[in-house]
Structure formats: C-alpha cells, structure tokens
C-alpha cells in the first residue's frame, strides 16, 4: 500500500493496519484486500460492481470495515453494496470514502448502500468522507443510503464529511416498521467554492417507529449547503429533525424541512437554526488569548465534534 492510501484509510476508517474481522478495501474500483468470517460474509457481486455483506442472525459485537479510496486522477467509481443484517444481530459497520486528487481532472465515488435490517437487530454505521489534494480537480462524492428496518430493529448512522470534498450529493431513504428506531447524525464542513446537498426521506409506517435526525453543518468562504428532509408519519410514531448550521464569510445554507403527519397519532418535530458564530463566544476566547481566527476555528471544531 502506498503512503497516501494509508493516510486516507486512517482518516476515513481509523485504520492503522489490516482490520480484524471481516473487511473489504476498495481502491480505484478494485478490491485490494478482503476477508470474510463465518459470522460476517463478504461476497463480491457478479452482475455489477460491489459486494454483499451478510451478517448471520444473532451475531453479536462484531465489526466490518469496507472503506473505499480513489487515488487515480479522473477516476469515477460506482459501487453497489448490499447489507443483509440477520435477526437479532448486533454489529458495527465502518464505511467511508477518501479521494486523493492532485490533478485538474475530477475524481469521484458514488456509493449506493442498501441495508436490510433484520428483526430486533442493532447496527451502528459510520461513514466518513474526505477529499485531499491540491489543484482544481474535483473530489466528488455522491452516497446513497437505503435503509429498510424490520420490527424492533435499531440503526444508528453517523456521516461525517471532513472537508476537501468539492461537491457532494447525499440521499438517505428509510422505511421503518414496528418499533424500529433510527438515529442519523450528520456533520458537514464545506469551504471555498464547495457545495453539499443532503436529502433525507424517512417513512414511519408502523406503530412505535421513531426517527431522530441531527444535522450540524459549517459552511465557510463561498460554499453552499442544502439540507432537505421529509419525514412521513403514517402510524403512532415519533419523528424529530434538528438542523443546526453555522455560516461564515459569504457562505450559504438552505434548510427545507417537510413533516407530513398522515396519521392522527404521529408526532413530528422539526427544528432548524442557521446563523453566524455567536459574537460573545469569540470574544470570550479572545479574552483567553486566542486571535479571532483561532477562536472561530476552535468553535467550529468543537461544534463538529
């Protein structure tokens, strides 16, 4: 593995060495290392690019790492990964994509992930995105996540866009059955002329289903972000969306919430707040000796942590 590969893997998946358990590392469209275990099987797809990740029922406290890196200038990767989580399983999944591009050509990765979450199973899923490299060459990431949650299942998804991504367009669709519980935490940082769009559609179809979407974003310079969420409550269910944004310089954040209660017992809440950093926070840090820029950077770091 080259040095830049290691750096990307470390940043997106906290990998310092080959992970224990099941894993698949994809580089420039090809698997460069893969391992299955009897609990979590990784099967390459034959009809299209991608893998099936099959977690056997009742497998507990296991993890699977499937990071993707793109280092070839101008390479456009498209991958379909399907996750089948067995009933009663409890697993930790680390995905994410890092692009390194020093050229002027655009590199990109579109990852289409579909989760079938079995009854009473529990999944924690982390997906980090990062772009590295100078020059104008685009680092484009368009992840799509489809989540189908069976009765009593829990899914916690954390997506983090660490910076350097020229443009991203994320799409998250979820359907929740009885007592299913979905938590989505999203953190996005954009700078320069970057753009990021994130769209959620969550449908709560059975009683006891609940979703909580927490989005924190920071837009600097001339960057633009758009947050669109739609929560449909079609049962005795609960939905909460919170979108907090900090804007600096000439940046812009647009938040478009939609909550649709189709059932009289649905309880849906949306909160959104966008604004610049509170002046008194900067002032306080300046009284401790930081410059204004240092103060802003620290506040942003804390906010996205």
């Amino acid at each position: 593995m080259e040095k830049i590969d290691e750096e990307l893997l470390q940043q997106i998946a906290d990998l310092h060495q080959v992970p224990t358990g099941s894993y698949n590392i994809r580089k420039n469209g090809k698997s460069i290392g893969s391992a299955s275990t009897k609990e979590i099987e990784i099967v390459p797809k034959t009809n299209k690019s991608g893998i099936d990740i099959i977690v056997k029922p009742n497998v507990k406290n296991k993890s699977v790492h499937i990071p993707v890196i793109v280092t070839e200038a101008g390479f456009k990767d498209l991958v379909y990964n399907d996750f089948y989580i067995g009933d009663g399983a409890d697993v930790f999944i680390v995905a994410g994509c890092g692009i390194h591009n020093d050229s002027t050509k655009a590199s990109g990765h579109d990852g289409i992930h579909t989760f079938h979450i079995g009854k009473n199973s529990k999944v924690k899923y982390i997906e980090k995105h990062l772009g590295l490299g100078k020059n104008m060459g685009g680092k484009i990431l368009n992840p799509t996540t489809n989540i189908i949650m069976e009765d009593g299942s829990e899914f916690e998804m954390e997506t983090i866009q660490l910076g350097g991504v020229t443009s991203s367009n994320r799409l998250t669709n979820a359907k929740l059955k009885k007592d299913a519980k979905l938590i989505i935490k999203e953190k996005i940082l954009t700078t320069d002329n970057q753009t990021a769009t994130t769209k959620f559609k969550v449908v709560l179809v059975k009683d006891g289903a609940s979703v909580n979407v927490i989005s924190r974003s920071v837009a600097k310079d001339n960057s633009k972000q758009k947050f669109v969420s739609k929560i449909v409550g079609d049962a005795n269910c609960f939905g909460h969306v919170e979108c907090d944004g900090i804007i600096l310089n000439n940046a812009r954040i647009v938040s478009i919430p939609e909550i649709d209660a189709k059932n009289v017992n649905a309880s849906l809440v949306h909160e959104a707040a966008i604004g610049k950093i509170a002046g008194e926070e900067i002032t306080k840090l300046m009284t401790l000796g930081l410059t204004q820029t240092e103060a802003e950077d620290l506040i942003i770091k804390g906010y996205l942590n």
Partner: protein
Amino acid sequence: MIKLKDVSYYVLDEKTNAQKEILKDINIEFKKNKITVITGHNGSGKSTLMKLLMGISKPTSGEIYYNGTNITDLSVTARANLGITMAFQQPVRFKGLTVKNLLDVASAKTTNLNDVCEYLSTVGLCAKEYINRELDGTLSGGELKRIELAMALAKGGEVFLFDEPEAGIDLWSFEELIKIFKKLKNKTIIIVSHQNKILEIADYVLLLNNIGYKMGKKDEILGKIENSKCARLSEV
C-alpha cells in the same frame, strides 16, 4: 497600573436616536497590586467599565493606559496577552467545547487531569465530574460561574477583572471565594460587587452612579455611604 483619562462611553438609544451617556469623563487609576472593588446600582455602568478595560468595548472618547502605555486601540487578544484577564458577569456557553477544552485554551497548554484538578478544586468543583462536560446549558448557573473563575485563574495574568464573581455562588462557599482573591497577592485585582464581605477586602473602592463616580480608599468611600444612610446612593 491601569489609568483612565477622560474616558466616556455613549451608546445610541435606538428609540429616541439620541446619545445616551453610560460613563462620562472618568479619570481614575487602578493601583498596582491592590484590590479595587467597583460598586453601584444596577445599570450604573460597572460591567461597561470592565469591558472597556478588557477591550471588548472601545471608549467613545478618552484613553486607557497600561503601565504607561496607551492601550486604547489594542484588541482583546492583545490585552489578554499583556496580562489582563477577565471573568464575565454572565459566563458564555459553548456548544461542543468541554471544560477541559477551555482550560487548555486558558492555560495555553494541554492540561492533564492533575492540572484540571488544581484549577477546579480551587473553585470548589470536583475535576472528574466536570472535565469532560460541555460548557453548555446543562451546567447550573453556579457551576458556570465557578468554571468562569477557574478559566481566569488558569489563564493567569497581572490584572484580574472579576465581574460579580459572587453571583450565584452559595453562601457556604463565600469564604473560599475571598481566599481566591487574597491568594492573588501580587496582582492587581478589580472586582465588581455589591457584597459587604467583598467590600471588606478592598483597598480602594470605586462608586459608580448615574450622575458620576467617586474613587478612593475604602474607608473614605464607605464612610461616606454610612454617614449618609438615608441618602440614596445616587446622592452620595
């Protein structure tokens, strides 16, 4: 140590569009290594004066000198680095920053548990319980106030500005608070307070009211208040 020369501070009243005098023609000196307590009724301009000293607000006219140097145009950061340290009347809350993060910034180093323990135990808090707490709305008013003090102590400096440090701190801890001020022996201390117990430790007292100000040795100023018991503060 710190000298104010003809300092005035006016704000524009948004309703009447007229200038409103908050502080007018102040000429005073805060003496080196002495404790000065600023007192006066609500809205008399005490916090405003502290903000002028820290550089958070700029005087409408007049100059401020620090050890003979004109610092009127110095930024907050520059004054902090010169050695001016302030604990706010209303502590600022931070979404996402922990007590440790802020103590790191204040002390300009990466603190370890021992350091944090030292700063927090001085203000009567148990380090372990607070070190990783976010400095947000989940902390009580008194806790925030104590952490605000701890940050000032962790930063250190030559001139300490404490704006109503006793506000929200329970009576039982009052003696501890006084000890903190007494410990800062070779420092210049300026405290805004309404409390007798704090006035007692003052070397100098600055009395602000809506018609002017009076500064002098504690006995001079406090004697006057006592002699004119029935007089209102504003008439002293």
